[in-house]
């Protein structure tokens, strides 16, 4: 059936390489590498493929784009702007859109890919967070990911600024205002960044170099490291049958995963091409060239800057002037604190969690979000915090579309970013514990079969049946928390690790992490903790009245 030797052409070239590089040993080891499968593992792939598409389309655009702020009078295909003074950057972007065949398509695919890149990174990070896939030994990849997301924000902002249209100039103006507000060095940074006063002549060429060379180079390096580490450590698996800490179950890289991931790249490119063809994005010719005195209402940045925009909008106008100096908290705080909390929090989270739980083991099988309620709840609190700031970035659009009071919306968010995350934490944690209870029930009593039985003495009850094997494996993947040794033993001697204020904090946090855990476990035949009704194995019934 299957041939045992490869065709001569393949065999010969592989041998040629092997003689020089020893590559066949490596390929033999990796050709059938197992990739565990789950739909959510594709999110990171979308980011990877968007990045490749960004490199391809971006290279195309550089062939015509002129990163120059030299003023020219436009006289070209877009007749509505004929005779208008504009920078060469803007004029060449018009040329790409209206005179280079496929130029508009590449521009739109490039912009859509940037939007998708950031969105898929965020979705991927949420997946990693909520399933605990960042735990030892994968903390490094988690940190690299946060680094890439941060760089992606900068990269997007700079790319957005290059065409020098009205919106991009406004974005730069805000960047300048924020830079200027930094205490002590703000005005210097501003002058050095812009080569003088805003807008000057230098900013577009400088951003261009950073946008096409520096940051993509950094991201490319980080992507490579991210992939190599992932490959080396093997991908995490979902807690399903056949997946354990010691083994990974799935289809081999060659041919299945290779073909699937290739198809996935094509899907990503295809959908982006579809968007680029039929969904307009950033029609710079409608905005006109940048004019520092002009602006349009409802101007909005790309989505990933929305959280900063929202923070700037809802911040109260606090400013201090004393001893001849001014500190603008109304700009500084929103520009640094919210994202600082989210990114720093995300970066230290794996280490804090390991410290609190005392869990220093390797983890290759993911946790179901319900089985780590504090983690899941914290994640949802962060999502709410980020989400509210993000929506606040569109407070004028909300006010306009829903006929609400601008002031009311702003105050709603000012209060909401504190209360919202708290509520999200509490509600999420309750939901997680509820789901744990349900799991405990399924394991303890079996599943409701929907079959009503009448006993000889006339009582009705519903029959419960043991859950299917796959489901049981998934549910039983929960690791029940074992209570830690008390902070002090009977003779009042503190346990190691719980001494001093840090030790106290750790014990308290540990209790908060574990105290309401609901054990999900199989009982041989004895009593069950919750209902007192035993029996899993047989098809036993319980009265409906319960």
């Amino acid at each position, binding site marked *: 059936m299957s041939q045992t030797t490869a065709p001569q052409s393949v065999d010969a070239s592989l041998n040629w390489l092997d003689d020089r590089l020893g590559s066949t040993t490596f390929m033999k*080891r*990796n*050709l*059938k*590498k*197992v990739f565990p*499968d789950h739909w959510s593992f594709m999110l990171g792939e979308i980011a990877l493929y968007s990045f490749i598409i960004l490199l391809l389309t971006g290279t195309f655009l550089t062939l015509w784009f002129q990163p120059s702020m030299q*003023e020219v009078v436009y006289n070209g295909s877009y007749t509505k702007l004929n005779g208008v003074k504009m920078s060469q950057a803007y004029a060449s972007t018009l040329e790409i*859109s*209206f005179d280079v*065949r496929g130029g*508009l398509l590449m521009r*739109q695919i490039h912009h859509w890919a940037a939007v998708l890149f950031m969105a898929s990174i965020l979705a991927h990070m949420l997946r990693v967070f909520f399933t605990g896939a960042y735990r030892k030994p994968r903390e490094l990849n988690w940190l690299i990911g946060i680094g890439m997301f941060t760089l992606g924000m900068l990269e997007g902002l700079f790319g957005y600024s290059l065409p020098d249209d009205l919106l991009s100039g406004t974005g730069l103006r*805000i960047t*300048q205002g924020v830079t*200027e507000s*930094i205490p002590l060095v703000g*005005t*210097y940074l501003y002058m050095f*960044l812009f*080569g*003088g*006063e*805003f*807008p*000057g*002549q*230098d900013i577009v060429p400088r951003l261009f170099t950073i946008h096409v060379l520096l940051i993509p180079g950094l991201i490319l390096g980080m992507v490579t490291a991210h992939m190599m580490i992932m490959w*080396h450590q*093997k991908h995490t698996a979902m807690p399903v049958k*056949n997946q354990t800490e010691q*083994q*990974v*179950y799935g*289809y081999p890289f060659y*041919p299945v995963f290779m073909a699937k991931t290739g198809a996935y790249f*094509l*899907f990503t*490119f295809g*959908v982006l*091409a579809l968007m*680029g*063809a*039929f969904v307009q994005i950033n029609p710079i010719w409608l905005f006109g060239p940048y004019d*520092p005195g002009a*602006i*349009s209402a409802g101007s909005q940045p790309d989505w990933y800057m929305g959280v900063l925009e929202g923070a700037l909008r809802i911040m109260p*106008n606090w400013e201090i002037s004393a001893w*001849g100096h*001014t*500190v*603008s908290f109304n700009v500084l705080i929103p520009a640094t604190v919210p994202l600082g909390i989210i990114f720093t929090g995300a970066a230290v989270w794996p280490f804090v969690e390991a410290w609190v739980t005392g869990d220093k083991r390797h983890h290759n099988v993911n946790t179901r979000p319900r089985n780590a309620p504090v983690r899941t709840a914290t994640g949802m609190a962060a999502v709410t915090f980020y989400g509210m700031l993000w929506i606040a970035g569109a407070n004028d659009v909300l006010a306009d579309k829903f006929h609400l009071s*601008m002031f009311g919306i*702003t105050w709603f968010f000012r209060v909401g970013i504190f209360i919202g995350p708290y509520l999200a934490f509490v509600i999420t944690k309750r939901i997680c514990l509820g789901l744990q209870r349900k799991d405990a029930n399924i394991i303890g009593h079996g599943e409701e*079969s*929907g079959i009503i039985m009448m006993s000889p003495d006339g009582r009705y009850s519903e029959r419960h*049946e043991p859950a299917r094997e796959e*489901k049981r*494996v*998934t549910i039983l993947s929960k690791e029940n928390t074992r209570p830690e040794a008390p902070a002090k033993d009977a003779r009042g001697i503190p346990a190691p690790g719980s001494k001093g204020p840090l030790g106290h904090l750790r014990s308290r946090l540990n209790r908060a992490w574990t105290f309401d855990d609901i054990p999900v476990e199989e009982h041989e035949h004895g009593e069950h903790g919750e209902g007192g009704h035993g029996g899993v194995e047989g098809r036993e019934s319980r009265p409906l009245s319960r």
Partner: protein
Amino acid sequence: MSDDNKDDTGAAGSEEPRRGARGGDGRREEAPRERVIRTPSPARDKELLAEGDISAPAGAGEQLDEASAKRAERVVATFFLLAFAGSVGFIAYYIGWSGRDGGMHGVDRARESNFWLGGMMALSFLALAIGVTIWVRRLMTSKPIIQERHLPAADEETRAGFNEDFMEGAVDSGITKRPLLRRTLLLASAPLGLAPLVLLRDLGPLPEKKLRSTFWAKAVEEAHKQGKKGVRLVVDGTNRPLRVSDFSSPGSMITVLPEGIEEHVPEEQVLTETAKAVTILINVPADEFKPAKGRENWHVNGIVAYSKICTHVGCPAALYEQTTHHILCPCHQSTFDATNAAKVVFGPAARPLPQLPLSVEDGYIVATSDYHEPIGPSFWERG
């Protein structure tokens, strides 16, 4: 890379027949169970989430039914042919149609070419993607396999060996026992880190007093030299000097610049000077106007001039609401009261928009001095 491939197809394979059959029709017959009429369907029959976790090629672990495989092959081939047609269409449109009548110029032809090129490209990619997906799901016969996971750490012996080699190298190099060598090396490398920072100095000029004045100052000074009272205001866009009579209707707003900003400023500096000097002129009804203390003569019959650059982060505060006399910055919704020295009514801006002193000369509105405070966002040295 420390992976070694221990295929354990035997263990996994024994699972397969059952797994493979699940997708088929035989499942329901497999476990016939009595079902009471009018009761909900047993939960067990529902597709459970855990099941979908591994999306298997349907053929995995079993012999393909040759007839259905042939069918699948034909379907895949159709998609591949479609992809071929898509890319051929792309090239054909590009060569044959996109360049007609002297090439693509203007909105309509750009849109047309965008639809055709993008549509063909999307067709080609998506058809290929769908074809490959069906191929994987219907035709590939790979079985799921199991591989071992290993702890990445080296064993104790290797670690100890490394430590030994490391320390031996350090001793051999002499860096541990020759402190003078070590310290001077550190000393020599420390300034190297600072050198690139020094190099960045020429990125831009020092701020000095640049942020404290605008082109209004130079223009007014020039006017004073010529014995005039102040510099005329010209309308942004038309560059026409503005008479009081041109701007007599209350409730209107207009953007103005100092006269001569286009002519007397080097071309590459115009935008930069405009970004600081741009000013809004508002005609506030006299009965609602409350001039600030010390600025009683800064307006002309209720016509006031404020900097257009928002004191928050510098967007143009370009929206004016006639009924409330509020000036609104559309970026972050800072709101200023035009009748009351542009004080902040709402939003993140902390300071009023700076006001420009106005007067009348020969029927024209003139500015008699620069802004008395720096315009735009706050900064450390602002005070």
